[in-house]
């Protein structure tokens, strides 16, 4: 563990009825790092995010956030309140609320308890400014009053990224952000993630190697629930073990848009 790690997993094992989704995984990320995790299907990528965000409790191992906080005993909403945001693979937004309301509900607040939420009337100047800034960042400022249901697939993905940003997290966990996006949308999403990573730590899972090449400074390859190798995009692509893992799937060295 380096002194400045944002999240640190040590010897983490997740067992789904005999299938080890994570097998004594050790993984850490620095603050303000943009990290991409790749790997074939079933390598444990999404499980890694599940463990950090509290959705899955590991059988063994430690998951440390910052310096001291052990995440393995906390609930999802408690982990979110600590400053870890999670974006899911398929867009998960509130379709019966407006874009504005989606962001408003996501904003970081002192208390997200029932009575605070019931009595707290929205719309201080500061709150409106924060919502507006988030909408500008994700490029949906013109659709603030639209029902989220009416957004395109790509816009929903951005909205969800905006919702995660509105929580003002230190660490963002993002699962396959460009799945199902057009090339132009992918490219905008890449810019967005790089922009976010300027001030926060971002952990992205992605299959699309073109996208990975665009955004990644450091890539981690998972295989059978453990880290196979880590390094720059080029290093990873030339690693013979990575080639072997992807062989049989594709003749070229480039693993590409599996799933």
């Amino acid at each position, binding site marked *: 563990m380096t002194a400045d790690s944002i999240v640190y997993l040590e010897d983490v094992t997740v067992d789904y009825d005999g299938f080890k989704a994570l097998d004594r995984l050790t993984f850490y990320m620095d603050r303000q790092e943009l990290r991409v995790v790749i790997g074939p299907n079933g390598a444990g990528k999404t499980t890694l995010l599940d463990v950090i965000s509290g959705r899955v409790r590991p059988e063994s191992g430690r998951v440390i956030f910052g310096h001291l906080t052990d995440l393995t005993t906390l609930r*999802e909403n408690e982990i979110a309140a600590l400053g870890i945001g999670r974006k899911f693979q398929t867009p998960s937004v509130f379709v019966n609320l407006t874009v504005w309301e989606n962001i408003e509900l996501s904003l970081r607040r002192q208390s997200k308890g*029932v009575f605070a939420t019931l009595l707290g009337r929205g719309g201080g100047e500061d709150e409106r400014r924060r919502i507006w800034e988030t909408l500008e960042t994700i490029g949906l400022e013109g659709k603030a009053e639209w029902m989220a249901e009416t957004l395109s697939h790509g816009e929903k993905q951005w909205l969800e990224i905006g919702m995660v940003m509105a929580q003002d997290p230190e660490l963002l966990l993002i699962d396959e952000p460009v799945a199902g996006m057009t090339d132009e949308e992918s490219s905008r999403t890449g810019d967005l993630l790089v922009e976010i990573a300027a001030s926060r730590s971002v952990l992205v899972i992605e299959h699309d190697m073109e996208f990975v090449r665009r955004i990644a400074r450091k890539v981690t390859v998972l295989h059978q629930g453990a880290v196979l190798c880590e390094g720059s995009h080029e290093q990873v692509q030339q690693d013979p073990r990575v080639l072997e893992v992807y062989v049989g799937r594709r003749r070229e060295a480039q693993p590409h848009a599996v799933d």
Partner: protein
Amino acid sequence: MPTREWIAVGFVATILAVVLPVLNALPAESPFHVSNFTLNLFGKFLAYAILALGLDLLWGYAGVLSLGHGVFFGLGAYAMGMHLMLEIGARGVYQSALPDFMVWNQVTELPLFWKPFRSSLFTLLAVVAVPGLFGWLFGFLAFRSRVRGVYFAIITQALALSAWLVFNRNELNLGGTNGLADFKTIFGFPLNQAATQRGLYVVTALTLTASYLLCRWITRSRAGKLLVAIRDSETRVLFCGYAPENYKLFVFVVSAILAGVAGALYAPQVGIITPAKIGVLPSIEMVVWVAAGGRGTLVGAIVGAVSVNWLQSWLTRSYPDVWLLFLGALFMGVVLFFPDGLVGAVNRLVERVRTLFGLSRPAAVHADARGGISR
């Protein structure tokens, strides 16, 4: 709330709570006279509407379907009924201080849990607290264990069935199958007098108005939006840092209390409460009211409760055999053709007319146009 809505609420509340009772007080010869029977019928409908509001908050907004709200209705109704039974005193058939059914069952002393119901104040508290606490306990256990969706609906149905079984037993000392009946007075006012019934009707109409304003206040708050968010994606809510089960528990308790209050207003107006009002079937009927009126609108719940029951009272008088068939057909019809209910259908019609005359509003108001979620 916008001024227009205040005016609309005030208008409807005045008709229900002032105009109808005044028409009822007119001499019977007057062409505008509303009969005691009709007013009493309406009192029952409005009590149902109070329950429907809570059910809509729970199902229409938070997406939590309960098939067991008859239980909370029954708890409120029995709490009130117990007090009314004790008010009868020695005026019963057996001229005993005990309720008639206890004499019949050879109970010699008033059971302990009946005693506090001698007090009117305690009864009024119990009408709120018993369904509220029971709802809290049941909801706490269910939501903590993350029981959701269909599974939640099934265990609430099981709750309705078991409550029905329990209330049918004479050993419970709540009158068994025959329930509680033959009430004579309520807080000293004779129940067989038109003025008392009129008073009960007015209290019901005012309680409905207050309940509507309470529910409207909840749905307009940020917590109200969060309920819709829970219906859309509970996982997202959780990962936004909220504990969705606390919000679901909150609306569940609110709806249980509204159901209990509805029951307490029902019992003295109808004059009887039996386990038949608690079971699976009445609980499902309550859901049909909300579905028929249009879920997620509050107004729809009121419209649905009143119109379905009005239809029922008319059909069961004229064609007693077809009512259940009709109820089934109504539910199917609503689900298949009007998923957003009566209120939604009317809203869509209005929207279509607006479009026809070029008055349509932009996409921003989709929510209103669908008769759906209030903003």
